């Protein structure tokens, strides 16, 4: 008996399809699509639409994790940028509003990057600072209230559509394409992977490892702020207390599901984004099934446990032994 080992990524694609099929069993109209007011609706569209923020966070987080880092502040950054966008939306043009919200995200990333790369604070501690402080900053911006806005320009980022595709999905796809072009179209991907796999050897080879580290945290901050804008635009307001709450954990889970290791090095943007979709597909499935949403957390944890177990060296060795035995 010979077993063809899966190609890279086929496990994640398989898991995604499996979850979609389960959702279909639970809710037979899952794959139904309908066009209404020039915008697609349906459960499957919902998976992508609701999943957009986590997809964005995952494509930021995956690069940070590739450099052996982690960014716990992305949820807080979402709250800050959402607060900035909502506060400015009705008084300023969309360009200034958006520029400020995304600029704040880049600044947050710069702050994290400097703490990690220049001051050499452990990433988990360094980003914890902004995770805690960030929500406070967001509350200061909104003065403790839920700031609502009426700007239709900003609202487009949550509820609008382009050629029938919901705006959040468009934004996530555009961000992914830009990220792929930046990382794989230039030498950045190689340099980030080298930095994560062996920072000292990379530095001796002439790579600016410090710049790479700062750059990935800034990119992560940018993605988080875009996710924050989408969430704020979706509810037509900024809730500093709850926007992006715990989403940093979803982002890390997405990267873990999509990528091989938290120890840096090789990474895949597409698989991390797929990891985000898998998480959202589970969320949607549980909502559709009518089970209590509390179950969601337990199921999510179980799926992550299974994925991690499948990547454990001991289990892989055991599996290889098993395969040799049957051959």
């Amino acid at each position, binding site marked *: 008996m010979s077993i063809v080992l899966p190609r890279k990524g086929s496990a994640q694609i398989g898991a995604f399809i499996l979850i979609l099929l389960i959702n279909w069993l639970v809710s037979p109209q899952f794959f139904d699509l309908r066009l209404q007011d020039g915008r697609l609706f349906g459960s499957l569209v919902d998976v992508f639409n609701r999943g957009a923020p986590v997809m964005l966070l995952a494509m930021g987080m995956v690069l940070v994790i590739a450099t052996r880092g982690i960014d716990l502040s992305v949820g807080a950054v979402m709250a800050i940028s959402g607060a900035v966008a909502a506060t400015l939306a009705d008084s300023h043009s969309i360009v200034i509003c958006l520029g400020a919200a995304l600029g704040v995200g880049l600044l947050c990333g710069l702050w994290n990057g400097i703490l990690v790369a220049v001051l050499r604070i452990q990433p988990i501690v360094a980003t914890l600072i902004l995770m805690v402080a960030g929500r406070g900053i967001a509350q200061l911006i909104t003065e403790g209230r839920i700031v609502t806005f009426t700007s239709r320009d900003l609202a487009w980022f949550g509820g609008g559509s382009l050629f029938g595709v919901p705006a959040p999905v468009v934004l996530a796809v555009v961000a992914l394409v830009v990220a792929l072009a930046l990382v794989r179209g230039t*030498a950045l991907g190689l340099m980030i992977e080298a930095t994560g796999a062996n920072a*000292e050897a990379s530095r001796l*080879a*002439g790579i600016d490892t410090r710049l790479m580290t700062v750059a990935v945290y800034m990119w992560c901050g940018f993605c988080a702020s875009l996710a924050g804008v989408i969430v704020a635009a979706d509810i037509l307001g900024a809730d500093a207390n709850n926007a992006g709450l715990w989403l940093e954990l979803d982002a890390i889970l997405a990267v873990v599901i999509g990528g091989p290791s938290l120890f840096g090095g090789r990474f895949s943007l597409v698989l991390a984004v797929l990891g985000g979709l898998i998480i959202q597909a589970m969320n949607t499935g549980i909502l559709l099934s009518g089970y209590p949403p509390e179950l969601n957390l337990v199921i999510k944890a179980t799926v992550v446990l299974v994925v991690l177990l499948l990547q454990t060296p001991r289990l892989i060795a055991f599996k290889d032994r098993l395969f040799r035995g049957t051959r």
Partner: protein
Amino acid sequence: MNQAESEASDLLRIRRLSKTYPGGFRALKTVDFTVRAGEIHALLGENGAGKSTLIKTITGITLRDDGEVWLDGREIHPRNGEEAQAAGIATVYQEVALLPNLSVAQNLFLGRQPTRFGLVREGEMGRRSRQLLQGFGLDIDVSAPLGEFSVAVQHIVAIARAVDLSAKVLILDEPTASLDAREVEVLFTVMRQLKSQGMGIVFVTHFLDQVHAICDRLTVLRNGGLVGERTVAGLPRMELVRMMLGRDLEAVETARSRSHRDTVVDRGAVPAVQAVGLGKHGAVAPFDMILREGEVLGLSGLLGSGRTETARLIFGVDRADQGELRVDGTSVRLLGPRDALRLGFGFCPEERKTEGIVAELSVRENIILALQARAGWLRPLSRKRQDEVADRFIKLLDIRPDDPDKPIGLLSGGNQQKAVLARWLATGPRVLILDEPTRGIDVGAHAEIIRLIRKLCDEGLALLVISSEVEEIVSYADRVTVLRDRHHVAELTGDEVTEQRVLTSIAAT
């Protein structure tokens, strides 16, 4: 002392110990090693000589392939540190492996606290700790956290703990590396005391002064093989240095068949690289150095003499805090390796695994890394160009297996070394610094790398080569700078470049 008597007083006797690591590197080749009761025995050798592997096989951390370990007349087979400890072999490593946040007493009795009804008897533990340390001439507050004391005190606590576990043999792995002169004296007092109690002490160090100060006998290892065992008293320092770095004299004479290359170097021209009073406090004393194109400058000296530190200053890995570096006569300030790369420098570091290869990346990516770093992230090398470069150097240096997409971590040491060399050759450097380019690689690759060094030099590169192998360095160097105790102490040129002269300079006091 006759044979029978010496056998009788042997406490630790090791015969024909061999160890080959996965990947085929022979770390120990049928090594004999004997420690007597009541002696301090120095274990000497450069990096990669096999000292660590020998200690690890004695203490059971690494399992031996072949050979015998006898302790006090019984053969032992420890499979881990605890079993070796139980058998009577105590080890104190260079980095103290205790817990700095616990008290001294807790550290001494960790895992074997005196208890009554399951509760730790703090008072009893403190009393016995004080008693134990007073035996070592140490009167300190045993309830204070260990981390508050100096490294020397921590070492003595570690020794006290190890010895209190009924040890017969005590292994000290470079305990003096981080101590100052006074602290070393405190440690020596303790060692003499233990020796007078009949313990056998193995003392790993690379400070020759300390060997003469305290040791009775010594054993020298080189490239995994036994060079010899000597009594320290009356052993000339020159002889000791030769044991560590040189081959025996007859072999050297035949090896010196090389005629010095006809000097084509224009000594009057502006040197490619010139260091003037360059130095860094705590790393290497200010030195002058000239490096010309088409010339090999060798750096020789014992471990810790400042060889690697010199290379790191010139490549900008560490920043010099005094002096100046000139390239083509112009003063330059290197803020990091990237600056050196732009000037056309290359550097193959000594620590191949931690500073050389990026294990996860493929051979191809490792080879093009510096070339890509110089081009910048905005100008990626096309896949076609990458393949061309990788294929060219895989062929040129005969890197095996010749699969450019294999992760480099899976290659043997010699092939990894060649790939790191290829990384720099691909940038077309004019100055290449090689730190121990032949360390830990097999004989075939060794010869190839030396051939390559000569060829590069003929092609007009300026080469700075560091090596512990003196006969190797004199075979290709045009000039040799000798380092001792972080100072550049001698420069040998022309006919002076002989193994004898290099060894004499290293041994001089």
